[in-house]
């Protein structure tokens, strides 16, 4: 993840970074894995719909984004440049969606369009 490398801690070893990256890689899911959450947020099934990465311009189906679910929120990254496309955090009272990494989402007016 050249674009968004974790901040290096003082004294951290390259092998630890490599380990963290290997762990990140093993923990990667697809956007499809969080389709239920996305349907909750957008009110519609969108994993087969297109979105564009605001960083590199890559256009892909939302289900093809890379999903990371291990943190306090859900992070979806571009499969090409690895930059963050969407962050979704739920609290007891609300859901916060940070979608500044997407230049658009295609939301159909009815299913199967």
């Amino acid at each position, binding site marked *: 993840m050249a674009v968004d490398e974790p901040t290096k801690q003082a004294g951290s070893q390259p092998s630890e970074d490599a380990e963290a990256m290997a762990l990140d*890689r*093993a*923990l*990667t*899911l*697809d*956007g*499809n*894995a969080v*389709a*239920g959450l996305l*349907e*909750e947020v957008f*009110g*519609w*099934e*969108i*994993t*087969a*719909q297109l979105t564009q990465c605001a960083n590199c311009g890559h256009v892909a*189906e*939302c*289900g*093809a984004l890379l999903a990371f679910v291990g943190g306090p929120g859900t992070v979806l990254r571009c499969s090409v440049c690895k930059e963050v496309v969407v962050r979704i955090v739920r609290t007891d009272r609300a859901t916060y969606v940070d979608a500044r990494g997407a230049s658009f989402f295609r939301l159909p007016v*009815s*299913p199967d369009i």
Partner: protein
Amino acid sequence: MSFARRIADAIGVRASGSPPRPPEWAPAPVESAAPRPTLEWQIATVTRIVPETARARTFTLQLPNRRPHRAGQHYDVRLTAPDGYQAQRSYSIASEPERAGEIDLTVELIPDGEVSSYMHGVLEPGDRIELRGPIGGYFVWQASQPEPLGLVAGGSGVVPLMAMLRHRAAASGRQPARLLYSSRTSDDVIYAAELARLPAAGDGAEVFQTLTRGAPEGWSGFTRRIDAEMLREVFAPLGSDVRIFVCGPTLLVESVADALVAMGVPAERIKTERFGPTGS
């Protein structure tokens, strides 16, 4: 008089554009349009539990509000503790959409898995469980798609692909279909009997298996991890128009997808479902 016209008159200019449209609107329809189907949690009843392997069981569930699914979709299962703590996991649908009234979820027991250990250790026929679905429109296949179908599974990644093969059989699909399925040992092969019967139907479905941790006497399949050579051997005969679905542990899915792209399969014809670090 409209607001725009009043402003236009006040500042002494003609409002541009055509005059206001006369009231020719249609009356409101008698009935409102069908509401959008919403993804709601519902309580299903377990009607049957079938062991597939030592670590995988199929749960047949009856849903009060069953929506038709497509092969490859999943359900979210949610458990709630008395103190309100909740755990939620996604499980692929194993049954074909043609089967009415019930769905099968095949669930692998993950050591320390909050939801799978409950489903394996506690759940019995007649019990109820909370779930929502079907979910996901990306990793789905329909028998009406005429292109050859390539399926690559690692471990319990075979579940959504089995739904595709069952759907293909139920819908009398005739496009060539090949499954390449990697398991650790022959005891870990989910749906072993059904997969063994599949080619005998003679409808163009073929099954290739590989075992990565030792094979029994007389094993005729592969005996190594899936690699580029194996992928070429299995999928090159399907031609360049093939659509490929890959499901399994993340690292397997990534190495398979990379090898397929290197083989010349366009990335947009490969759909992946990674299920994380488990099972590798």
